[in-house]
């Protein structure tokens, strides 16, 4: 019996030594990441994790990264963030909108730590914000859908009616209307970011009601699989989903955080980090499009031209005039297009969407 206790004690001792080892490597910059979902969601969190791995690959000998996954938005988030800060992380990425206030509060308590908050709008001296213009990619999808749909009906699997999702739907519709003004869009809200079964069911419901192209803002490849099974087209989300629908995927919006993460980590290493607000799209590669596949060459060319136009700024998805669902022209605050605030706070549909706006 005594021997077992002894063995157990020495095992604990060994574990403690192993655990303590990283603390000795003080010269490395410690970088922490807070994730909303599990890294295995194959969606939003997965792509942030891909970004973290890019940092490790690029700066592996200079940094020491950690992440905390499945952190709920709310009081727990602040605890998780402060734990990372207390643990010696000097740069912390908080990767969901709901971490905004917890990040700002944690930043006050740890003024010597730099924070990067994704998709928020509150900044501080040691808090930067960053987000991607995913709606630009949706504009291209709209153009492709308008060209490729035979039935004239596009199905859209949507999670929650927040501005990011609404602006995506509107941008998609504006893209479609630039080619084909009568394209119809059917929207199904699944009330979840990630539930493959429900996403697949929503996809099937939309297909049953005549949609021959599916777009999605939810995180799993379930809709792509459903489209592939029924022999229709679909757009991937977050990641290139071509292997889930080799004959179905037209293109996909690919979130690319890696370049930004590397750049910001380098800035901390160089001592040049400053609080900034970054909102990049196709031009800087924060949003990327998967290959244009399963479409004729003329559509492929149109898609490419649209992408180039968006990159150069020649095309703006929300160029004025913008008319809302009720037929009223939206005030144009950004000169010749809607301004950032209008896009980031969007809570109305553009003309042509005959769905009722969800409350």
């Amino acid at each position, binding site marked *: 019996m005594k021997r077992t206790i002894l063995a157990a004690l020495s095992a604990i001792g060994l574990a403690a030594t192993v655990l303590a080892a990283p603390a000795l490597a003080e010269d490395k910059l410690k970088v922490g990441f807070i994730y909303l*979902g*599990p*890294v*295995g*969601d*194959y969606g939003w969190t*997965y792509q942030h994790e891909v970004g973290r791995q890019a940092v490790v690959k690029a700066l592996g000998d200079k940094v020491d990264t950690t992440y905390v996954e499945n952190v709920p938005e709310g009081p727990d988030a602040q605890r998780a963030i402060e734990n990372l800060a207390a643990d010696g992380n000097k740069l912390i990425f908080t990767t969901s909108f709901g971490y905004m206030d917890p990040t700002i509060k944690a930043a006050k308590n740890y003024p010597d730590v730099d924070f990067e908050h994704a998709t928020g709008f509150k900044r501080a001296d040691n808090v930067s914000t960053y987000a991607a213009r995913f709606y630009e990619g949706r504009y291209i999808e709209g153009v492709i859908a308008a060209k490729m749909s035979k039935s004239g009906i596009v*199905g859209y699997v949507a999670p929650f009616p927040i501005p990011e999702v609404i602006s995506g739907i509107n941008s998609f519709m504006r893209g479609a209307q630039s080619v084909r003004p009568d394209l*119809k869009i*059917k*929207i*199904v*809200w*699944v*009330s*979840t970011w*990630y*539930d*493959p*079964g*429900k*996403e*697949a*069911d*929503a996809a*099937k*419901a*939309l*297909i*049953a*009601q005549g*949609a021959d192209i599916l777009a999605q803002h939810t995180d*799993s*490849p*379930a809709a792509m*699989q459903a489209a592939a*099974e029924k022999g229709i087209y679909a757009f991937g989300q977050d*990641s290139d989903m071509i*292997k*889930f629908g080799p004959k179905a995927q037209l293109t996909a919006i690919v979130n690319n955080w890696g370049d930004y993460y590397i750049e910001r980590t380098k800035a901390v290493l160089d001592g040049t980090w400053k609080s900034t607000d970054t909102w990049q799209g196709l031009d800087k590669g924060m949003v990327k499009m998967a290959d244009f596949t399963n479409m004729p060459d003329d559509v492929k060319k149109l898609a490419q031209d649209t992408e180039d136009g968006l990159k150069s700024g020649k095309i703006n998805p929300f160029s004025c005039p913008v008319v809302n669902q009720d037929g009223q022209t939206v005030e144009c605050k950004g000169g010749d297009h809607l301004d950032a605030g209008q896009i980031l706070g969007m809570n109305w549909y553009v003309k042509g969407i*005959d*769905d*009722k706006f*969800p*409350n």
Partner: protein
Amino acid sequence: MNFTEAVILTIIASSTPFVLAGIGELVAERSGVLNLGVEGMMIMGTITGFATAYVTDSATLGFIAAIAAGMVFSSLFAFMTLGLAANQVASGLALTILGLGLSDLVGTGFVGLNRSKIPSLDIPGLTDLPMVGPILFGQDALVYLSIALVAAVWWFLYRSRGGLILRAVGESHVSAHALGYPVRLIRFGAVLFGGGCAGLAGAYLSLADTPFWGTGMTAGRGWIALALVVFASWRPWRLLLGAYFFGAIWIGNLHIQALSGSLPRWLVWPPQFWTALPYLATVIVLVMISSGKDRSGAAPASLGTPFVPDR
């Protein structure tokens, strides 16, 4: 395929995991064991089924492995609650949390892999019949199996001696013990059966419904299955009906939304309401059971109480 067919087909497909997990839990609860670990056992089945099917390239082996995983996992629960007479509620919750974490760990290497769906039966001639064809003859094998399983459980519980004993154990383990029945052994069997069914239900998600693996993809279906057993007041056929009812709510809402452009406003309710409805319906049924004079629909009397012989 017309619209009504499509609606019914999607309802049946998305109800099948509820039927499978629900019928297993029903048997366990009938023996007096409340296993709140359905979600955990289910997700273990989801990953084990997918991983096995992916590695061996055989859906059948995947389903078998999922059943085995559910059984092994539930035997852990059986060991705690039957062997050590631990609290069933706490053990069940622990099982769910453990399952969600463990499945994630096991599944790390399988994220983003793709498999083709298990085929539906498709009987030439019969499947082509309008309306009834695809619904009656065009489903995948698991749909028929789930219905057969409900029938078998019904027969076992109400028409066989074994079932009578199992129900007796659930109603009064002390009397059953006094009569010489091996209470713990019978409960162990019932818990294993429940685990196997939950594992199979999980594998349905990752092999038939959406053939890939993603963390947490059971998304609360195990909890719906638990509510379903109560909703069905521990009766097999009611469970089958209830599962299709819950499935219809779960999916019907999506169909209504897709139609919403052409529907009157009052028919389009917030999606959150539909998500809550199965639980709401369960509460209402519970209230009805407890206020009724007829106790035949009520829970097994020993449900949730640990049994320790000779105490």
